[in-house]
């Protein structure tokens, strides 16, 4: 006699309990605190905030702890929480020209007003495992200097003054929000930029790299990369003026790309743009390259059939929460569908074995 398998509910409860135990790991080892994650895994926190579309280092640290360090899972936790938050309104546009820069470099000019500021970068470290860190994580004394005026003008503005780079039309239009409206294609640039800034870093990196290797190459120079704090302000209707809500750290990348021109328009450089929460420069540079590749139509370029030029391909597959959900769902039960396939294949094989030509009854 056969009795159907039961006990799904108990299995789930037990799996959750085991998961909680595994998350904690060896109880003899000190538990991670959120402060430790926020302060010492800051780049991880930045990535979770960027892809989670929510600027809150403490919540991101909590998500990372809860997700056992699985960053896509942490992003998912942040996103699921984010959707439950009420919306009070929209901030004023942030002014990255007023950014208090920790890092600001240009690859197009040797020097410029505001200077080249390396900031806390891995760029010129030798990637040698530092075994001292394993024993003692204390930082050596850092040289201190006088705080100067950390703000610096945008490099591309210098090119703009000469008319050497295409101008971006200003607009007061409310940008679309793909978290509130279903994504519609073709997408305008604000919608594309929103999708890119919350896109999976690895996916964007791969796409951006593909443009560098010739799949819609767009000859990008990093005109400027800056990382630092900007002020977020919001206009309160009752007050009639904007008040400061706080500061957030952003990474902004402006690329100067191959020029366009025609008989009527003299040659001009073009732009790609990346803006991402936190210190996330790999993502911001990738974003700028992919943004530029997606602009082929408005800039009168050819469709080379490259993945990075294909708006629908990029936007529909850039979100790692959508991607991981659909990918992983194939581990859910599919035995009803599989059974119907099994029946079909058996039937087709029977028909094939009986005769070269399938008999009427196999046809359906």
């Amino acid at each position: 006699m056969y009795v159907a398998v039961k006990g799904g509910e108990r299995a789930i409860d037990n799996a959750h309990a085991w998961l909680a135990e595994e998350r904690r790991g060896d109880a003899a080892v000190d538990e991670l605190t959120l402060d430790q994650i926020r302060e010492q895994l800051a780049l991880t926190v930045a990535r979770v905030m960027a892809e989670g579309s929510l600027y809150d280092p403490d919540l991101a640290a909590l998500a990372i702890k809860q997700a056992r360090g699985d960053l896509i899972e942490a992003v998912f936790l942040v996103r699921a929480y984010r959707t439950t938050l009420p919306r009070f309104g929209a901030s004023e546009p942030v002014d990255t020209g007023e950014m208090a820069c920790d890092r600001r470099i240009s690859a197009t000019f040797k020097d410029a007003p505001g200077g080249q500021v390396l900031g806390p970068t891995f760029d010129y470290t030798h990637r040698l495992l530092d075994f001292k860190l394993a024993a003692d994580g204390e930082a050596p004394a850092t040289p201190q200097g006088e705080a100067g005026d950390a703000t610096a003008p945008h490099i591309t503005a210098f090119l703009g003054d000469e008319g050497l780079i295409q101008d971006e039309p200003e607009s007061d239009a409310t940008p679309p929000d793909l978290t509130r409206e279903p994504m519609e294609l073709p997408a305008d640039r604000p919608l594309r930029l929103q999708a890119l800034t919350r896109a999976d870093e690895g996916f964007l990196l791969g796409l951006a790299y593909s443009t560098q290797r010739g799949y819609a190459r767009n000859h990008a120079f990093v005109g400027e990369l800056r990382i630092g704090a900007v002020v977020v302000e919001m206009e309160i209707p009752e007050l009639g003026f904007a008040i400061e809500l706080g500061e957030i750290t952003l990474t902004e990348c402006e690329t100067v790309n191959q020029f366009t021109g025609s008989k009527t328009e003299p040659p001009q450089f073009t732009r790609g743009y990346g803006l991402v929460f936190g210190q996330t420069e790999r993502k911001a540079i990738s974003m700028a390259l992919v943004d530029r590749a997606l602009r082929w139509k408005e800039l009168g370029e050819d469709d080379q059939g490259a993945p990075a030029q294909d708006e629908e391909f990029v936007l529909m597959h850039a979100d790692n929460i959508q991607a991981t959900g659909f990918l992983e769902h194939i581990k859910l039960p599919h035995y009803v569908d599989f059974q119907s396939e099994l029946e079909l294949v058996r039937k087709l094989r029977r028909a094939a074995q009986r005769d070269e030509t399938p008999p009427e009854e196999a046809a359906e």
Partner: protein
Amino acid sequence: MTFEGENMSLQGRKHDAAYNFAYLDEQTKRMIRRAILKGLAIPGYQVPFASREMPMPYGWGTGGVQVSAATLTPDDTLKVIDQGADDTTNAVSIRKFFERTAGVATTEATDAATVIQTRHRIPEAPLTEDQVLVYQVPIPEPLRFLEPRETETRKMHSLGEYGLMHVKLYEDISRHGAIATSYAYPVKVEGGYVMDPSPIPKFDNPKLSDCPAIQLFGAGREQRIYALPPYTRVASLDFEDHPFEPSKADHPCDLCGSQGSYLDEVITDDRGGRIFVCSDTDYCRTRREAGHTGPQGAPDAEARS
């Protein structure tokens, strides 16, 4: 099924007070209800909606969950099935989610439910005018695997340009002697839109048509809702000389002896032993409780366990 006003959460049973009734806020539910109403007004048309991130992953039924959340009222009785069964892990998980966030009554009995959320099956027992069947849909676009671009497929639907689909079915016949689609078998709704019935086995397709219940389809990741109002005519695509044929394992249920229900194949040992049991667990139990028994079953065995 009525859509009541803002204060319905106040009248309900106890639900987790940290969340609004049925988890989603009222504005979101209103947005989803608009999409549902539009879907009902244009049967088979895929209505875009601003799908929210839910606390379960995309692919786990977020579309169905959002449609159910927007459909449930505190007086409803909810049934959740996956693969026809109430006890599959994801069905359990979704049922618990609504028990917690909506505090609604739940049931495993098809005839006792007012809202049934399903993945991959239509219950065997006939549905009634008092019921809503909510399908979880992974890929709402029936033309997707013929044309990957959404911009193109929307155009094809608006022009009623379904030749590509017929060519695909024809190619199946010329290659295999039969249409090689056994689940998510495309249908035509009232002679208009071609629709994906979600990955139900084609055995279930006839139940889509002329159904007294409201049928709602939610695809969360793809941000689409579509619907079949009661008694809509739904035809499975076929050819005159190759008519549509629902199919199932040629076997009775080993537990309840049913000849006409869809069956799961269960491998019982490593020597090729297998039995066939109803995929619809409630249907099978009801039959056994009524005294029916199959070759391997004892009457009412599961009900007593």
